[in-house]
């Protein structure tokens, strides 16, 4: 039973991808992706229940293995996938109506997004470092086409940078994998690349070789996670990809890469003591936070603003991992989920703003709250969530990381990080309030052009009634399932901030996997 449940998150999306490949993107198939994502989430929850009750489970000739940490990451993937895929049909309808995309592109998007989901599921289920590496590199290949889908100069440039930088980073991780394998084979009790074996022999590994291997692995997977020295691909790729793809990349892909860093950390801590990875992760964390703060202050593009906020959050995750106490790791995992939900809302909302206003410049958007109250509400609350205000779960997780930092003897670094987080929050609120509040720009020429054809398809997307009382502006698209997805994600994020519910035991078990101590 557990075997079937844990394979489902990889198999269901592959089936959906096959359907898209055969049938294409059409009214009958546009919800297939959402159904598959719901299936992934359901299977992930089922797997998590099984794992909390019965412990880890290995299958497929020992290549795949699920423990509490993998099960938690599956839930993150499923949750963000649900939000994104439910909002995708609405997004694509507008794009199709405006002539910015065609059926072939929609089919490609539907198919590749599903393969992307399956690969991320394989990455977190991998029982050994080699399979994880292959899955991570494959996600780069699949998403490269999604980033470059628009084929304009900017999109092609973003895709090129994305593939070159991420592949180089991942190549470093491959070198690290080979070296770790070398160390493991020459340990007193030879081992392979399997997680369990590696953690078992870790204390016997040659420290000199392991140190080189761990540094390469953390920098390599850190590249894919968007951590600072090799982050350059992230703002470009996230701002150029179609909105649902940005939401998935920012919401889960970089977190899955960070999951790889956590796995490496377990082995490194056992082999080298905590100091080595701690120093490495602290440097990456502070560099990411500083970079995000400095580039957010004068940011002019709202999609890039969200991308830099992702770099900030990855920095916070690295800080939490560097602290490494059970509280810090549990907070890191909760932060991954909260960030995934809030950031996917923001990127999907940003995609909608781009459709309504026709510009991605912050100063091109004014008074959104008056024109699109529901959308503006989603973005507003999303930003409040991402800057970690209560009741959203990011408040709880950032508080957890900060407390663990002060308790764990990293007070100075944590204080510096919190200062940077404050600067970033101020910048985000400042930019967003300029977009949402104030009087609307009076001559939205591109807006009218973008919105007019939308009206024709609006009845199809009819669903939730538009908030009454707004002044009668040019025809506005009624919000259906996509509003539902965004509001649902924000509500989930807020509920998680108040109570973890059944997620609590899973989180505790998952952090035990990382820290090694119950």
């Amino acid at each position: 039973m557990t075997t079937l449940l844990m394979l489902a998150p990889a198999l269901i999306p592959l089936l959906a991808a096959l359907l898209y490949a055969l049938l294409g993107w059409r009214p009958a198939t546009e919800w297939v992706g959402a159904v598959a994502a719901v299936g992934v989430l359901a299977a992930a929850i089922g797997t998590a229940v099984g794992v909390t009750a019965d412990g880890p489970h290995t299958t497929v000739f020992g290549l795949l293995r699920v423990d509490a940490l993998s099960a938690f990451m599956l839930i993150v993937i499923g949750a963000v996938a649900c939000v994104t895929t439910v909002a995708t049909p609405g997004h694509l309808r507008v794009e199709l109506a405006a002539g910015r995309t065609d059926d072939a592109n929609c089919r490609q998007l539907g198919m590749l997004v599903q393969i992307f989901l399956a690969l991320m599921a394989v990455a977190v289920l991998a029982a050994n470092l080699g399979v994880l590496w292959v899955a991570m590199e494959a996600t780069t290949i699949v998403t490269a086409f999604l980033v470059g889908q628009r084929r304009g100069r900017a999109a092609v440039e973003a895709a090129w940078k994305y593939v070159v930088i991420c592949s180089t980073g991942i190549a470093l991780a491959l070198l690290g994998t080979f070296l770790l394998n070398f160390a493991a084979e020459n340990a007193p009790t030879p081992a392979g690349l399997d997680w369990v074996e590696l953690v078992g022999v870790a204390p016997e590994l040659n420290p000199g070789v392991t140190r080189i291997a761990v540094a390469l692995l953390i920098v390599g997977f850190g590249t894919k996670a968007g951590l600072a020295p090799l982050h350059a691909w992230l703002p470009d790729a996230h701002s150029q990809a179609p909105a649902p793809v940005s939401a998935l990349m920012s919401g889960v892909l970089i977190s899955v890469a960070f999951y790889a860093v956590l796995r490496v950390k377990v082995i490194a801590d056992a082999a080298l003591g905590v100091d080595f990875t701690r120093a490495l992760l602290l440097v990456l964390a502070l560099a990411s936070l500083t970079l995000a703060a400095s580039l957010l202050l004068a940011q002019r593009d709202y999609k890039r603003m969200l991308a830099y906020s992702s770099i900030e959050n990855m920095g916070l995750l690295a800080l939490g991992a560097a602290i490494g106490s059970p509280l810090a790791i549990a907070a890191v995992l909760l932060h991954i989920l909260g960030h995934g939900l809030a950031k996917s809302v923001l990127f999907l909302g940003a995609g909608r703003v781009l459709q309504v206003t026709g510009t991605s410049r912050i100063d091109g958007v004014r008074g959104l709250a008056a024109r699109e109250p529901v959308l503006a509400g989603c973005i507003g609350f999303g930003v409040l969530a991402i800057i970690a205000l209560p009741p959203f779960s990011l408040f709880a997780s950032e508080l957890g990381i900060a407390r663990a930092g002060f308790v764990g003897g990293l007070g100075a670094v944590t204080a510096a990080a919190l200062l940077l987080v404050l600067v970033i929050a101020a910048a985000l609120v400042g930019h967003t309030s300029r977009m949402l509040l104030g009087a609307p720009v009076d001559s939205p020429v591109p807006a009218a052009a973008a919105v007019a054809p939308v009206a024709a398809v609006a009845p199809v997307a009819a669903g939730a009634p538009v908030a009454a009382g707004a002044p009668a502006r040019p025809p506005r698209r009624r919000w259906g399932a996509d509003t539902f997805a965004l509001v649902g994600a924000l509500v989930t994020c807020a509920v998680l901030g108040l109570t973890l519910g059944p997620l609590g035991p899973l989180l505790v078990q998952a952090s035990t996997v990382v820290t090694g101590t119950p």
Partner: protein
Amino acid sequence: MSTALYIQLIDLAAGALLLTAVLVLWRRELASIIEVFALQGVALAALVGIMAVEQGSAELGAVALGVLLLRAGVLPWVLRRALAGAGATQRETKPLVNVVSSLLAAAALTLLAYAVSQPLVQLAPSAATHAIPVGMAVVLIGFFVLVTRRLALSQLVGFLLMDNGITAVGFLTTAGVGLIVELGVTLDVLLVVLVLQVLKTRMREAFGDTDLDELRELHD
């Protein structure tokens, strides 16, 4: 095969690996860079082949054939095709670092590779592991090419040099990391190159040229 001959052959193949990496830095014509890259593929395959004969392993022999096919055959072919469509930019005219400094940098990087690799050699001293620093040097030189060259195709060659170095280290350090991983790695490298080839074609459609200096749309 006698041990002395084996050590000599390993050293010869490793030397060829390093020499071709340096030649990539020295040459400027993209066409000859690609030829040198193909030669490096042959050297890498020879290295694996020698190890296969020494160990009497048919499986490793098959892998050596695969390496030869991919790195001396398929990848150079893809690169040549990309070059044929590249039009005027057949030559790396103004790399960020000139050729003389590049060669000096290569020397420094090789020394660095030897220094960094000491723990690796000492862990299990043998003829094969003594060649690890060469693999590391090729990785570093590849990285250097990647960050200092401006043409899209040169960057691609830099990436592939890195990959050759990593593969060499992989074979020198271990009997193998499992067939599935091996296959996955090979497939991924091939796909990355094909993706970049597609992007390069699109880049030419969008930019008319593939000088990465033209890539200035996205910045902060």
